[in-house]
């Protein structure tokens, strides 16, 4: 064995460490991959060794290789081994590797649960810290469920370092295990007011992250955050809170009003740009939420815009960027205030920084008007030509389309220009947005009838030049436009001037290289084209030409029949047969054109994309209802199902709505027609489009012809959109002149009639009449479409699960899963089996808490009673969001004085609704206790209580719930919450000298049945610096201090901190014990170095550590049914004591036993109580406490007689002190 060890460490000398590995890789630049694979082989060897240091070293190297892209998941098990090393050094390496490569799919991850739990409860804060950090990266739903409770406990850890990490990781736990959110939320909320700024910041962070996804559930926290905002000085926290408010204001406009003032103050006062920026952002959000009917906030908008302008004009590009970003938010609601800064934004469009140009582009969207659209787009087109990166160019492309198509092409005055722009855009190489352009072409051609002729000619040109577009594979994205071109040419073939040429272009062999879906459209549309040519020729009597064209089709179509694409093949072979048949008929000289064209008769109307979704379910149609009654359960399964449709039922269900609907439908249709008739922008569709075109009166005065003459349209691939800009200018000029003339003659002749949309036009814009009188057909919607717009919710949103109502009281079933103890089966869920009458008695810990509260201010209580009630009410109001929002006190006074430690400490964590209820109950209880003595009080209180109850009956109805909830909480309190309450301290003096004072507390370890943790508080009383503190004890046979591996029993444990003068800090030490039935005393020494100006001296302080039997007990709640069973079982030994001369109240007494001896009350009747506790090694301890006139008798039962008698002795001592 020893030899092996030696051998191991010699081997180790020649292992590479991380530095060697890195150096090696750097020296093998030529054959890096080979070198690394060699290293991985070495690592595999190292991982086979027993020595944990070697393994850790290997894992450390693997982590580096992971960064270089090597998969290291094969070593997952070894990583877990290293994680479970006892030394922090190795543990950290293990957790780092795990955080880099573990994920939900890692199968061995489930092996880590217990290791992580152990590390979380480690006395060394850095073990805990490193486990939390690691866990935050690889937490899975299973881990989250199993560890949620442990992490929640850590949220109340004594060390802020642990607290803040525990708080932060809760977010990840919530994400993976949403059920934990409600039970953990009260504590999380508590942490918002943690004394440590780091913890506070972490809590704000988590809640902000939660609220961002589901803001409405967190509205009730607004007052608390408001208080934090006005009091905090930490900019990180402020930024988070202000961002959160930005998310909350849209839900509650009143909140916005309240925020404006403090935010404006912050904007004026802060020097931190980051804070200023976030304030401006939130003010914008507020203004957006208030935008309806709040005219007096123009000052705020002005302030924001003004501040943003300063940012944009700043030389710092970062500020410029952010300024533009925020500007775009204002744009949505207050476009006018942004438009006045157009100069600045256009200037940014020429910035050398792409990010800034992109932001400026966003803003352009709101800058355009009829007047400047062409100009702006022209500018953008220049940028398109110059842009070298595809991302930016694609962005430009989408922006051009967005700008032009916004609000139903509102700003386009000349659609020919727009089509030319689209055609020009097809020259872009390698863009991803071909389909966008195609969609626009289709949309415009279909909806703007007047432009079809022009569009068709342009599309025909595109088809003719298809080889330019589709020639090289890089341009693949753009070939989508051919889809649109082919369809438009086919569908509107009547406008084609040289249809033959286009048809030939479509039949070129090159077409077969296009993607399948485009070929399919080609095939379909060449038939349309063919049909119209056929008709044309037949009408002209050119039979030969008609046969020629048929022949051409028959010759060329087979190339599509051979296509690998199923759709193309099917269409082509179908059509080929059809045309062969036509040819036969043609040979017989039968006129066929009419029949062929009938194939494509009728017009396709545009249908809104959401139309299908919006069709409402007709009245009386229940899609979930059975068509046939399902077979009853009693029927055997193999019985054959009956025929699905019963005649009977069909008859039954049919006649119901069709008739009614038909009528209704007809009525609605009529109404719609009426509406459309009144709508000048709607053109009724008629069966043959070309006829329609001819008799539309509006079309006649379209000046298309003139423009056609001046623009060289037929230059292939070179449409000149620029020409239109000039033309447009001329046209406008002319119009203006004309108008001026008119004005002289006739002052008021408005042209407003001709406008499509006149709601948004400014005066100046109204002067510009569109070049074409354009009718845009609206997209069709079903007759009775629902106006709802909530159709874009992603059902797979991971944050949806966290949309949980947090104000609802906790149900019992929502408890976090706690690691079960041996007697866990004794606990019964109160909901299921325990009759409600008993409930009150089963709130051990809660009661204890209340007792303490009472104890604290018992003396003052009677005089103050009235006052307290008032104060409470006031506080309640403060918590009540509605009240808070409606009264709107000045922000300074929002933080009202706390009415007393009692309410703030105990109640802060509970949801508001519960609080009131609880108080009522508390009062009731008080009555029971004190009522006998002072019946006057009782009556007085009763009145109050009744008043309160009558105020909201709703709440009292909920009472049942509340009591359950309380119980759930009390259970948690019992097991988790060992925070000492102010008046009673469990810390006892350990030793003291002029330099230092130490106090200690011992707690059993939940996870380990032979360990206790001793927390020692060191307080520096001197004016010197204390350092190198070391604590050592003389181990006994039974009790030993847990020392790091490898150190001898004589080594002390260093205290992990130094103490400056006047500072105190806490350290924890773990002891292992074998037997716990007897109290123990250990002698020990604390050595430390006192350092002051004169030098440093070595000091020692001896102490005795007293392990009382009570310190081995863990407060465990127990329900009375389980308790009764336990007593009945007869396995317990019994013993009893009696103490005389007790003057304190029974409650007080019980509280003392609960607190100092870790018991919990099971049941209490008058001056009798049963109590329960459990030792770390699983001994049950049951007590029956009876209070006589001046004495107390305690009967105890326990599975170990020695333990019991020792416990009772200790209790006697405690009680006799009272």
């Amino acid at each position: 064995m020893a030899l092996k060890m030696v051998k191991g460490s010699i081997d180790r000398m020649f292992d590479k460490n991380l530095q060697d590995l890195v150096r090696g890789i750097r020296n093998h630049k030529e054959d890096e991959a080979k070198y690394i694979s060699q290293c991985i082989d070495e690592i595999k060897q190292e991982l086979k060794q027993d020595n944990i240091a070697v393994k850790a070293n290997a894992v450390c190297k693997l982590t580096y290789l992971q960064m270089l892209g090597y998969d290291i998941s094969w070593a997952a098990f070894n990583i877990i081994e290293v994680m479970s090393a006892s030394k922090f050094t190795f543990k950290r390496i293990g957790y780092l590797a795990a955080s880099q490569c573990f994920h939900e799919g890692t199968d061995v991850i489930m092996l880590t649960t217990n290791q992580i739990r152990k590390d979380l409860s480690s006395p060394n804060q850095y073990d805990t810290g490193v486990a939390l950090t690691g866990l935050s990266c690889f937490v899975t739903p299973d881990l989250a469920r199993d560890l949620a409770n442990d992490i929640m406990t850590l949220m109340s850890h004594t060390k802020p370092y642990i607290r803040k990490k525990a708080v932060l990781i809760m977010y990840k736990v919530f994400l993976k295990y949403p059920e934990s959110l409600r039970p953990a939320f009260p504590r999380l909320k508590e942490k918002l007011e943690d004394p440590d700024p780091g913890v506070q910041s972490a809590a704000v962070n988590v809640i902000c992250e939660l609220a961002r996804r589901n803001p409405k559930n967190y509205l009730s926290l607004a007052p608390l955050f408001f208080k934090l905002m006005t009091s905090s000085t930490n900019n990180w926290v402020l930024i988070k809170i202000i961002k959160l408010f930005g998310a909350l204001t849209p839900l509650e406009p009143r909140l916005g009003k309240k925020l404006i003032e403090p935010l404006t103050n912050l904007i004026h006062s802060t020097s931190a740009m980051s804070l200023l920026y976030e304030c401006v952002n939130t003010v914008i959000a507020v203004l957006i939420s208030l935008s309806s009917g709040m005219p007096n906030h123009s000052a705020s908008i002005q302030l924001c815009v003004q501040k943003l302008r300063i940012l944009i004009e700043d030389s710092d590009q970062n500020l410029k960027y952010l300024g533009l970003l925020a500007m775009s938010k204002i744009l949505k609601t207050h476009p006018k205030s942004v438009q006045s800064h157009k100069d600045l934004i256009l200037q940014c469009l020429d910035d050398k920084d792409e990010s800034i140009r992109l932001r400026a582009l966003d803003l352009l969207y709101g800058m355009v008007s009829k007047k400047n659209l062409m100009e702006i787009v022209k500018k953008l087109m220049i940028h398109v030509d110059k842009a070298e990166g595809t991302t930016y160019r694609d962005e430009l492309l989408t922006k051009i389309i967005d700008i032009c198509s916004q609000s139903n092409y509102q700003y386009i005055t000349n659609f020919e220009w727009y089509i030319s722009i689209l055609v020009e855009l097809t020259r872009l190489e390698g863009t991803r947005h071909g389909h966008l352009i195609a969609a626009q072409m289709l949309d415009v051609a279909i909806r703007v009838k007047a432009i079809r002729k022009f569009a068709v000619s342009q599309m025909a040109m595109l088809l003719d030049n298809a080889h330019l577009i589709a020639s090289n594979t890089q341009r693949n994205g753009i070939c989508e436009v051919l889809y649109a071109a082919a369809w438009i040419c086919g569908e509107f073939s009547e406008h084609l001037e040289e249809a033959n040429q286009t048809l030939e272009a479509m039949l070129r062999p090159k077409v077969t290289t296009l993607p399948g879906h485009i070929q399919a459209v080609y095939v379909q549309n060449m038939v349309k084209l063919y049909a119209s040519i056929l008709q044309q020729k037949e009408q002209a009597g050119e039979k030969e030409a008609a046969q020629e064209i048929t022949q051409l089709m028959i010759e060329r179509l087979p190339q599509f029949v051979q296509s690998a694409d199923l759709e193309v093949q099917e269409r082509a072979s179908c059509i080929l047969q059809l045309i062969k048949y036509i040819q036969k008929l043609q040979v017989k000289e039968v006129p066929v054109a009419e029949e062929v064209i009938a194939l494509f008769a009728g017009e396709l109307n545009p249908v809104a994309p959401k139309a299908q979704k919006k069709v409402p379910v007709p009245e009386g149609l229940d899609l979930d209802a059975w068509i046939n009654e399902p077979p009853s359960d009693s029927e055997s399964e193999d019985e054959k199902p009956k025929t699905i449709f019963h005649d009977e039922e069909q008859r039954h269900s049919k006649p119901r709505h069709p008739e009614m609907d038909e009528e209704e439908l007809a009525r609605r249709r009529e109404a719609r027609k009426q509406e459309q008739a009144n709508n000048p922008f709607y053109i009724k569709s008629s069966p043959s489009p070309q006829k329609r075109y001819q008799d539309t009166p509006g079309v006649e005065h379209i000046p298309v012809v003139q423009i056609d003459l001046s623009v060289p349209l037929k230059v292939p691939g070179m449409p000149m959109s620029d020409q239109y800009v000039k033309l447009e200018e001329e046209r406008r000029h002319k119009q203006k002149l004309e108008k001026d003339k008119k004005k002289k003659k006739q002052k008021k002749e408005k042209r407003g009639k001709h406008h499509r949309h006149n709601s948004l036009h400014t005066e100046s814009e109204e002067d510009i009449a569109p070049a074409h009188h354009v009718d845009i057909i609206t997209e069709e919607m079903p007759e009775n479409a629902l106006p709802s717009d909530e159709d874009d919710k992603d059902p797979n949103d991971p944050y949806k699960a966290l949309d949980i109502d947090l104000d609802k009281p906790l149900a019992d079933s929502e408890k976090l899963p706690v690691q079960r103890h041996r007697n866990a089966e004794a606990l019964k869920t109160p909901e299921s089996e325990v009759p409600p009458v008993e409930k009150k008695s089963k709130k051990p810990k809660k009661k204890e808490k209340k007792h303490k509260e009472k104890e604290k201010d018992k003396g003052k209580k009677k005089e103050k009673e009235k006052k307290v009630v008032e104060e409470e009410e006031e506080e309640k109001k403060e918590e009540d969001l509605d009240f808070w929002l409606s009264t709107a006190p000045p922000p300074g006074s929002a933080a009202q004085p706390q009415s007393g430690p009692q309410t703030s400490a105990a109640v802060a964590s509970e949801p508001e609704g519960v609080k009131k209820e609880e108080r009522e109950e508390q009062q009731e209880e008080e009555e029971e206790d004190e009522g006998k003595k002072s019946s006057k009080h009782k009556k007085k209180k009763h009145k109050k209580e009744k008043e309160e109850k009558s105020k909201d009956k709703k709440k009292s109805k909920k009472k049942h719930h509340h009591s359950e909830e309380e119980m759930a909480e009390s259970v948690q309190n019992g097991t988790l919450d060992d925070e000492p309450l102010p008046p009673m301290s469990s810390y006892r003096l350990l030793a003291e000298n002029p330099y230092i004072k130490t106090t200690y507390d011992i707690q059993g370890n939940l996870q380990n049945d032979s360990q206790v943790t001793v927390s020692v508080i060191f307080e520096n009383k001197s004016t010197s610096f204390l350092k190198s503190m070391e604590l050592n004890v003389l181990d006994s046979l039974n009790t030993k201090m847990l020392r790091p591996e490898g150190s001898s029993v004589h080594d002390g444990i260093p205290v992990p901190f130094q103490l400056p003068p006047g500072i105190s800090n806490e350290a924890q030490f773990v002891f292992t014990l074998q037997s716990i039935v007897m109290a123990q005393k250990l002698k020990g020494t604390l050595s430390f170095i006192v350092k002051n100006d004169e030098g440093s001296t070595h000091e020692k302080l001896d102490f005795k550590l007293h392990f009382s039997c009570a310190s081995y007990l863990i407060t465990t709640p127990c329900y009375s049914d389980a308790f009764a069973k336990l007593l009945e079982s007869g396995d317990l030994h019994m013993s009893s004591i009696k103490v005389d001369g007790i003057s304190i109240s029974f409650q007080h007494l019980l509280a003392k036993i609960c607190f100092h001896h870790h018991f919990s009350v099971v049941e209490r009747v008058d001056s009798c109580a049963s109590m329960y506790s459990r030792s770390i090694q699983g001994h049950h301890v049951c007590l029956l406490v009876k209070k006589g006139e001046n004495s107390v008798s305690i009967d105890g039962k326990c599975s170990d007689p020695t333990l019991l008698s020792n416990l009772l002795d200790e209790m006697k001592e405690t009680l006799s002190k009272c």
Partner: protein
Amino acid sequence: MIKAILIFNNHGKPRLSKFYQRYSEDTQQQIIRETFHLVSKRDENVCNFLEGGLLIGGSDNKLIYRHYATLYFVFCVDSSESELGILDLIQVFVETLDKCFENVCELDLIFHVDKVHNILAEMVMGGMVLETNMNEIVTQIDAQNKLEKSEAGLAGAPARAVSAVKNMNLPEIPRNINIGDISIKVPNLPTFK
């Protein structure tokens, strides 16, 4: 939330990668390459924010980066983070590195990536900002280093000796790699505390 933190040098060689979302190793490398491609072609005096990055991008995400001497520090964050705040966090990170390594340079990051990870873990946890106070971070790091030293004790000594010997024997100690200290120059950003 912070989605990822990347450090790479002027040639795109990764010096640290920390992803707070699961990506396969291949995708991680792709993201690093893509991010480097995006960031490296930007001039020195343009803004430090960047959209795009198809892999880790998405409309909600942003790249926020700083360039120090030979290294790029890139944070990929979503809209819940304050842009200027993250810029400051990067600054805090670099200053902390500078303190912990005493005049940090690229070589420190190359050879002690584990330490860099440990420092980062004290600042950002699971994608959320844990601590922004440099003194607090340094205190915790020092305490952990001390703990590590105390643990090494006897076991660590020979290993150190061996590595010293190894270092002596190596002829190819990178002597001529002369990468100056990273001089921390902050573009005149107002202080953020």
